[in-house]
């Protein structure tokens, strides 16, 4: 199959990547001979301080927790500032969401240490804080791009505010919100990997440890797993986004 056909392809793609990821997480440890070729002089060529599958698990847990919290907060805040009673805060919130994304995620991660210390907690905090911005920004964009006539009609038909929100606004904004969550996840998977340097246990561990000890095999193992994780999650969301309620035309 050609590369383009591969990129165009459909629902099986996330499954393929997930299968590859799991195989790699479980099987990389067995490829001693292969990695020996890379680092013939090293005593160990397979990262041994923690099982890859455990690192994958805690990496995923960190990112998923952060995504849940920042989705709730981000979408919630976007809903609040687009209501009549919260519109005072709209200019500030939307501007902060846009300026905040200018700040590199590494800087946020680094500054979490003086503020909160080392470990999983501060990493999680930084991930939530930074992951919030794309979700907030997209939710705002999604909610505000809805045709005012549609909202007027919804109210004119006699829908209660909550019905307008749940039946009209959120479904219509869903695709854009999902795109925001996807961006947030992509950034956070990368940032969580760097979180190893502030004491979080993630798939970044083998890479950092390899960089410190000069062991290319470790680096490669970590890098492969991180890359596969990011691609798998991204393609999963691509599928999800395609299944979001469209406007008929998209299908």
């Amino acid at each position, binding site marked *: 199959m050609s590369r383009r056909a591969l990129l165009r392809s459909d629902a099986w793609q996330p499954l393929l990547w997930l299968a590859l990821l799991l195989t790699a997480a479980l099987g990389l440890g067995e490829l001693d001979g292969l990695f020996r070729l890379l680092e013939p002089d090293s005593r160990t060529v397979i990262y041994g301080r923690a099982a890859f599958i455990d690192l994958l698990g805690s990496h995923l847990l960190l990112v998923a927790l952060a995504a849940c919290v920042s989705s709730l907060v981000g979408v919630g805040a976007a809903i609040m500032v687009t209501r009549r009673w919260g519109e005072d805060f709209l200019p500030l919130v939307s501007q902060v969401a846009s300026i905040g994304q200018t700040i590199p995620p590494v*800087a946020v991660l680094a500054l979490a240490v003086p503020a909160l210390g080392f470990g999983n907690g501060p990493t999680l905090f930084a991930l939530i804080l930074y992951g919030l911005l794309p979700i907030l920004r997209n939710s705002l964009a999604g909610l505000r791009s809805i045709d005012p006539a549609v909202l007027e009609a919804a109210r004119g038909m006699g829908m209660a505010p909550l019905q307008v929100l749940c039946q009209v606004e959120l479904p219509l904004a869903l695709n854009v919100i999902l795109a925001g969550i996807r961006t947030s996840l992509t950034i956070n998977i990368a940032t969580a990997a760097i979180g190893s340097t502030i004491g979080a246990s993630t798939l970044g561990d083998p890479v950092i440890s390899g960089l410190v000890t000069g062991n290319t095999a470790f680096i*490669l193992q970590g890098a492969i797993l991180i890359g596969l994780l990011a691609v798998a999650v991204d393609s999963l969301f691509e599928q999800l986004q395609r299944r979001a309620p469209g406007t008929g035309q998209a299908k």
Partner: protein
Amino acid sequence: MSLPLRSNRVIPLLALLALALLWCLDFVSIQPNRIAPGSGLGLLAALGPVWALLLTGLLLACGLLALWSPRPTYGPILALVWLLLLQLPASLAWSIERHIGADLPYARVGIGAGCWSLLFLLGLLLIELQQRLGLSRVWLLGSAVVLALLLGWLAGQGWLEPLALLREYQSRRSQFAAALSSHLALVGAAVGASLLFGGAIALLLQRYPRAHKGSIGLLSFIQTIPSLALFGLLIAPLSYLSAQFPALQQLNIRGIGWAPALLALIAYSLLPIVRNTCVALQEVEAGVIESARGMGMSPAQVFLQVRLPLAMPLIIEGVRVTSIQAIGLTAVAALIGAGGFGTFIFQGLGQSAMDLIILGALPIIVLALLADGLFSLLGEGFSSGARR
């Protein structure tokens, strides 16, 4: 946007929050030397009653001005916020003056959480005012520059010398300069190269539209790969090449260092540039091109005199996104020995030296904001030119 004709609730809330944090958190902390543990000083202890009450009064005045007038007059509030912002360096100098005598030659003053919170909330207030007054984002940048200049001047006078951040800087002056130049060099090289390649790719895609979807797909695929992974994946092949060809070693191309960093940075930078350039070139209104042709312009003239100038704002937007992204990624590249401000961050993390971490992180944020402001300004200039 229509702004309601009632009092503003955002400013009082921010002012109140600033007040609460200011009084609850430490304003500064003092360490007798680098190793000794620091002790925090609250607002009152750090600045004395007069200054503390003055600060409180100014913040209250901001809130009340916004709350009480039926139609908030943002001008005076802006003046107050500016005053609050500019007193920040002075208040630091004042607390140093009060607490650090000649008996403590190695004392270090850390900026406390209260001070940082005040800075952050003042920033939010400025953003709020900028939005309400309809000012450009560049204007925010201007305020930051004025603040930085004031800080620089006070530091130059020696009044801020015991500031821990400054002490870290003093002991690493040459390293700081080296980090700045290598950071800028990497970002500049990556953005420059990807502008060149990206522009070429975009032009090729104009000619061969069938390759469009695949190319963008490939570039987005690269974009999803986390930086640490991409850096890591480049190390093995590069060190193999470097081992095979000694000529590469002469150029300092190795598994680690600037070579894998630059390669990865370019790979990441291509997507925003190619995508924006393609969109920009395609979205020039067909009627404009048609009339340019109709007036007898040659294809080259149409491109250079019509298409490109009209596409410029979007292309610059691509460069803006790319530069900000590259500034952040270069910080990560310090992990593979590419230098830059990331070095300070990771050194600081290794030694648990918080001020060193801040010394690395702050300039990265400043650089990113500067790039954002600079390219926004440039983009605005071009788009107003295009509108004329």
